[in-house]
Each structure stands twice: as C-alpha cells, then as structure tokens.
C-alpha cells in the first residue's frame, strides 16, 4: 500500500551550498545597508530585513527540526523588535500621540468579523501557530476599537499560560507516561500565551493619549 504513494525524500546536497551562498550574499547586502545607515529608525527597519535573512538560513536546512527552530527565531525577532521600538519612543521622547493616520472606514465595520474568523481558525490550529493567528485577530480588534482597561486581565492570562507551559514541560520530563496530558496543557498554554502577547500590542496602539482624552 505504501508503495503506491509518491514519496518525496529530499536530496539537498546539490542545492544546499548554492542556496547558502546566495543567502550569504543577501546577508552581505543587508549588513552593508546597516553599515551605511546612520539614522536610528531606518536601522530599526533594517533589522527586520536582517531577521528575514536569518530565517532563510534556518529554512534552508529543510528538516522538521529546522522548522521547529524557525518558530523560536521568529519570536525572538518580534520580541526584541517590540522592546526596541518602545525604547526608541522612550529615548526620542515621542510623547505626542499621533492623529490616527490609519483611520479608514474598514476599521470601523470589519474588526468584529475579521477578529472572529482569525480567532476561530487560530483555535483550530491551536498551539504556537494558532496562537499567532488568533492573536493577530485580537490585535486587529483592539487596534481598531481601542481598548486599554483590559490590559491587566490579558497580562494575568499570559502569566498563567506561561505557568501552564512550564508545568507541561515538567510533565514531559518527570512523568513521561502522561505525555498526552502534557501535550494538551502545552498546546493550550502556549496558545493562550501567544494570543495574550499579541493582543497586548493591540491595546498598546492608543498609547498614552486617545483613550484618556
């Protein structure tokens, strides 16, 4: 029965090196740009370019392990990115809230529906990716509706989710026979964790002004 399926097993030796060298060339280009760039915000944008190049190198390995490594790489990127952008605002003293440049009609009508779609798909996906997708939906919602008082709740949720995750890890390491329990806790925990973090960004949109004014 298995013989009937057309199985693809990668033979990467031929293409890996060429692909890697092209990627390294791209990296040289992006680092060249970083080297030439003097302005702080442009540098921040360029770091995203560098992150993408970083993910390409990992993606080229092309095993399941590589894919599992891309996810942490992504998260590290976004986390540092957010922290740095806050730092930038702090250091430049950009206290004045912007007039809502992104205010278009869709933002008033769409958020509910889109958020629901994203969240449902995210729940079906669950786990890490699902968290990101559902979080995206909530982010969009909060960003359009502007909500600030829920932040404490979201923070608490994310704290518990993290604890869940650690518990699941301990289950895997200490009592591996309950692996099933571990999978479910971990899936739920990491989902809640990522959702919470993503939607926090959404609540941060208003930032210091419009909610209170």
């Amino acid at each position, binding site marked *: 029965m298995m013989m009937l399926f057309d199985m693809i097993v990668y033979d990467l030796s031929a293409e890996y090196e060429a692909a890697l060298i092209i990627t390294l060339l791209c990296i*040289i280009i992006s680092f060249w740009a970083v080297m030439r760039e003097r302005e702080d915000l442009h540098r921040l944008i360029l770091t995203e370019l560098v992150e993408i190049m970083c993910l390409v190198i990992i993606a080229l390995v092309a095993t399941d392990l590589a894919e599992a490594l891309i996810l942490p790489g992504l998260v590290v990127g976004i986390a540092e990115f957010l922290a740095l952008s806050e730092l930038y605002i702090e250091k430049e003293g950009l206290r004045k809230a912007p007039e809502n440049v992104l205010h278009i009609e869709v933002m008033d009508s769409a958020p509910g529906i889109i958020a629901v779609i994203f969240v449902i798909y995210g729940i079906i996906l669950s786990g890490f990716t699902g968290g990101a997708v559902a979080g995206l939906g909530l982010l969009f919602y909060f960003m359009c509706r502007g909500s600030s008082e829920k932040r404490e709740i979201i923070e608490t949720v994310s704290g518990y989710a*993290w604890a869940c995750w650690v518990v699941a890890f301990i289950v895997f390491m200490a009592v591996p026979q309950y692996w099933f329990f571990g999978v479910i806790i971990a899936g739920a925990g990491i989902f809640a964790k990522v959702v919470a973090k993503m939607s926090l960004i959404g609540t941060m949109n208003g930032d210091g002004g419009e909610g209170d004014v």
Partner: protein
Amino acid sequence: MTGIIRRISRILQNHNNLVGVYAFVVIAIIIVGLLLQSPLTYDQDQLYPKSIDKNSSLDPYDRGGVPFGQTNVVSQYPENEPYLGYVTAYLTPVSLWISETTRFMGTTIVSHPGGIIDEILYNTRGLDTIIETAILFVAFTMAMFLFTRRREE
C-alpha cells in the same frame, strides 16, 4: 603611528559607529569564511528528516505511525524520551474528523496538538520553547513597563 592609533580610537569610541563596525566585521567574516572553506557540504544524516507523502490527507506533515504507539523519529537521545513518537501520531477528535473529510488541511491538523512539530517543540526540545517564551515574556515586560510608565506620567 600615534596618529593612526588616535584615529582608530576615535572611530571606536563613538557609539554611533558601533553598529557600522560590527556590520563590517560580519561582512568580513562571511567573505573570509567563504574563501577559506567554500565547500559547505550538506550532511545527509540529519535529525528529524522529512519525507513528503503527497497523497496523505496530513500532507505535508504525515510522518506515519500508530496513535498511542511508537513511531520512528530520528532524535538525538531517544533514551531520554521513552515516549518518543507518541505525540507525532496523535490526532485529537477534531483533527481526525478534519483529516477524514478534507484532503488539504494537513498544516491545520498538524499544528493542532499532535504532530511532528509538537513532538519537537514540546517533547524532545521542550526547553527551547520554554526559553523562547521566556524571551517573549521578558521583552514584553520591558515594553509594557516603558509603555505604562509613559502613560502614567
């Protein structure tokens, strides 16, 4: 000689040049590294290798195996993971249902608890995921601290 040293010190002590100097060093390392040892051959003997079964409803993540039974997964230290491969083949009722009704939701199903990526992220390399959520946690704490403080003022 002193002039050169002074000039180098002056470049290095300006913190605005820091990133530029670093980028320059990285470029130099990549170029020199490529020149020194250009054949970067791909090792065929990889951990967690992939095999794609285009006809499976779990495509591209079908790694075979019986649910609640051992599945063959190439991990680094299998003796540390007595239940290695159990996660890989497990499908929740929902995902089982999806996999029976459709043929193109493999990604959706596998990111549902149970799947090779979960195996790696939760079981064999669970610590990586812990650290990575910890990074997320730390970075968000930092952003939220700055944000909240700015808001309170």
